[in-house]
């Protein structure tokens, strides 16, 4: 079971208090975009074994959205960070590197 700490209200709870919101840091392509961009925005997702970045919502708590970095094989949560950002903070990436040397996710590593 995942143990997540909400960066908005500070509560640490288990995953049943939260709701998963899918992959993090998607770039939205809407009307006027190319078919390829629109298709990849709608359908193409990472499916990593290991380090993954996701959106979560503290649905039974403060109600806010945030980001989480976790390991899909061990369910270890490396950290959480605010929703209002386009990429994970460098400290978090460094912490993941210390635990999972050589990790990569999209263009991050």
């Amino acid at each position: 079971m995942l143990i997540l700490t909400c960066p908005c209200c500070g509560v640490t709870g288990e995953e049943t208090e939260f709701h998963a919101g899918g992959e993090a840091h998607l770039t939205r392509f809407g009307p006027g975009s190319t078919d390829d961009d629109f298709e990849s925005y709608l359908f193409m997702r990472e499916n990593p074994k290991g380090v993954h970045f996701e959106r979560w919502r503290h649905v039974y708590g403060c109600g806010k959205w945030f980001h989480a970095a976790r390991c899909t094989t061990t369910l270890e949560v490396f950290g959480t960070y605010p929703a209002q950002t386009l990429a994970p903070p460098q400290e978090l990436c460094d912490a993941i590197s210390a635990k999972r040397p050589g990790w990569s996710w999209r263009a991050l590593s």
Partner: protein
Amino acid sequence: MSKAVTALGGAVNADGIAAIAEVPLQGMITLRGDLAASAVKAAAQSAAGVAVPGPGQANCTGDSGLCWMSPDELLVLCPYGDVSDHVQRMQDSLGDVHALAVDVSDARASFTVTGPHARDVMAKLAPVDFHPDAFQSGMFRRTRMAQVPVAFWMRDSDSFQIICFRSQARYVFDLLSVAAQNGSAVSIF
């Protein structure tokens, strides 16, 4: 003018390891806005008569108080009959400040769980650490009980007050009653 009643008409279950009781009509006002803004703080304090609590805290005495709901939301508790006056006064004092004050008294139900085994009963239902070192008087938590969202705080060392949606009042009361059945004490705390 219709006669206001609570969801379960003052239901009580005092037969188990903790006493479950529905709270009489309780005034509740949701106040949303920038909690650091002095106008928002002043509006909350004037209605509740207490200081704004920090994250994860409730500041309640009797049927008045303030509960920290989220980074931009407070729950103002006040006597049921005072709600419309308070909402009007809060809206007047907030003026142009980007904030919202709404009467939610009749959208909610509230229960108390009281007795030396109150922590046992709560711990069976919510995924929260209820150890006396971890959850103490004045602390406030929004979470779930079984399958529904709730909020609760500790009023003193052996008494909790719970707030849930009115439509789920019977579910929550029955949950608490089952969790408080005689002979079901876990006595882990």
